[in-house]
């Protein structure tokens, strides 16, 4: 699904990612953990194609394509989804309107018919249930006046509508209380499938109690310094990031 080789990103002369390697297979859920400033969010943004993160070396291949050569909207239509750490407000634009544009842009890209209003609404209602959201939510402006929890839920709702091949969840757990976290995690779990891969970018182990990853990677100094199964997250929780950062011998291949 996704193969990242020797990825290097340099911003203003500072190396943020330094030869990062990562491979995510179909249907797998990988967690990327690491201390603040380790490059977690940079990785998420580079995959999605955000400006301001110049790639100075390495490659990213997605379903056999050179992902880095594609514009952000092309990546999205190919099935790359980013759940934003800070979802953006768009005043005056109803949630449902953005969704419809987004769903149809992807459908068109795949050579499918645009959904008509009835079919679209049917799909929307089904997915709303998944995230336990009320229908009035559709008609509010995108993220405007949403609580932190509502914003994050909205991201996962959008993911459910767009049915991506690869979803990158950037600190989706931050700012959520335990009830909201459960709803979001259930929403993500319901979308796990053999042909959908998920990358969870998170600072805390807490999220991984609810979304159990196949692999856990620890990012430090712009590289993956340790990989393992879900137990690695628990070890980290117990010992703190200092443990992996201070011991270079723990570096292992993903």
């Amino acid at each position, binding site marked *: 699904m996704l193969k990242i080789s020797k990825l290097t990103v340099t911003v203003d002369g500072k190396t943020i990612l330094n030869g990062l390697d990562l491979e995510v297979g179909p249907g797998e859920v990988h967690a990327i953990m690491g201390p603040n400033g380790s490059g977690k969010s940079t990785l998420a943004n580079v995959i999605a194609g*955000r*400006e301001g993160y110049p790639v100075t070396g390495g490659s990213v291949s997605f379903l056999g394509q050179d992902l880095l050569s594609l514009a952000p*909207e092309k990546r999205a239509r190919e099935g790359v989804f980013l759940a934003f750490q800070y979802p953006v407000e768009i005043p005056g634009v109803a949630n449902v309107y953005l969704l419809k544009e987004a769903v149809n842009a992807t459908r068109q890209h795949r050579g499918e018919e645009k959904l008509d209003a009835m079919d679209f609404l049917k799909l929307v209602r089904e997915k709303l249930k998944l995230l336990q959201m009320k229908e009035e939510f559709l008609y509010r402006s995108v993220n405007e006046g949403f609580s932190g929890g509502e914003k994050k839920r909205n991201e996962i709702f959008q993911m459910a509508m767009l049915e991506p091949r690869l979803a990158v969840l950037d600190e989706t757990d931050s700012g959520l209380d335990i009830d909201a976290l459960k709803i979001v995690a259930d929403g993500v779990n319901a979308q796990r499938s053999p042909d959908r891969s998920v990358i969870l970018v998170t600072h805390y182990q807490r999220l991984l109690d609810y979304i159990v990853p196949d692999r856990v990677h620890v990012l430090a100094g712009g590289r993956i310094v340790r990989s393992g199964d879900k137990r690695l997250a628990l070890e980290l929780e117990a010992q703190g990031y200092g443990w992996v950062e201070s011991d270079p011998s723990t570096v292992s291949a993903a």
Partner: protein
Amino acid sequence: MNPAVTDLGELVGREYKEGFVTDIEADTLPPGLDEDVIRFLSAKKDEPDFVLEWRLDAFRRWQNMKQPNWAQVRHAPIDFQAISYYSAPKSDADRPKSLDEIDPKLLETYDKLGIPLEEQKALAGIAVDAVFDSVSVATTFKDKLAKIGVIFCPLSEALANHPDLVRQYLGSVVPAADNFYAALNSAVFTEGSFVYIPKGVRCPMELSTYFRINALNTGQFERTLIIADEGSYVSYLEGCTAPMRDENQLHAAVVELVALKDAQIKYSTVQNWYPGDEEGRGGIYNFVTKRGVCRGDNAKISWTQVETGSAITWKYPSVLLEGDSSVGEFYSVALTNHCQQADTGTKMVHIGRNTSSTIISKGISAGRGQNAYRGLVKVLKGAETARNYSQCDSLLMGDRCGAHTFPYLEVKNPTATIEHEATTSKIGEDQLFYCRQRGLSEEDAVSLIVNGFCKEVFRELPMEFAVEAQKLLSISLEGAVG
């Protein structure tokens, strides 16, 4: 200079000076403005004497007035003696013969707006064939309206057929010498519409399709007068989303609205005159005076405008709230891209008791565009418990454009409630990226964000117009980001 040329010049001047009053068959007047030109115009239209007197009076006052310079716009001084004040509509022979002769860029825009082919031809100034019989369409509407007593005709026709009605109201809202451009218009107006809605009649159609077809020969100095008698209602749509080319650079129109007791006038404008090229060359100067008066209790006037065209827009649709409990509304979207300049807003004058007004202004600046909101809310002494709510939002795209807000408040009654909110925001890279990450192209993302910004105004437009206005905004902003 070659003496022969000088002589010819003098000769032309002399012929014109002596010849025009009698020779009303002339198709075009040479440039220049004096009382004789005004007499010629009036004679050409066979106007009643009172109109000629009114025009001359306006002209005399205009001569003592100065071009205003307080607006936040810049342009070279206009030479009013270099303008020709009369020219007959082009005959079919002078027009382009087919769409092949029209600027492909213009046609591309028509296509994007989804304008039918026959209508495209009409808009581009092509002599249309018999299949597209605009005359019969217009006649059908006219019959329907006539049955319920609605008068809807060119102002010149109204002057001939309903002189007393016109005389009663012409200049009663915008006096002849109201301002420099209104005075000029009063002196030389040539085209325009007249609407009268009788007591208690709700005009059954938007006065739009008719207008769109008939707007093709709108003049440089249009004058519109709309009267809604007691308890009546009318919705009037002015302009056209399709870009309109015009050889006249200066447009100075006047619109007067009169709403009597319990009457309601909804006036919507989509203005898309040629804005000039990307360097600001060419383009229309649109200096318009629009004003309505709520002359009776519970009267209501709403202005809604979407201004995307013109090199310079200078326009303040206003409402005088005379009647008790009368209502004035102003909803505006003004977009300036490239080198366009707009100084636009409104005046709400509260005179009667319990009057209320709402102002929603959305300014969008892109490229090197300059956009100013200028608004006055005035509450006179007798306007007990007047209320106003104003909201002025500016959206900036890029870092070479400008937005300016000039709100003026004059409140002479302590019971008034005035609210004013203003915001300025920049279309964010993060908003664009968010939309693109969801699969929208950059252009669709811009259009989505801008339409969201303008939503409160668009929802005031009649449905069909609103859809067109949204498309128009997207087209006007193409290439504004990135």
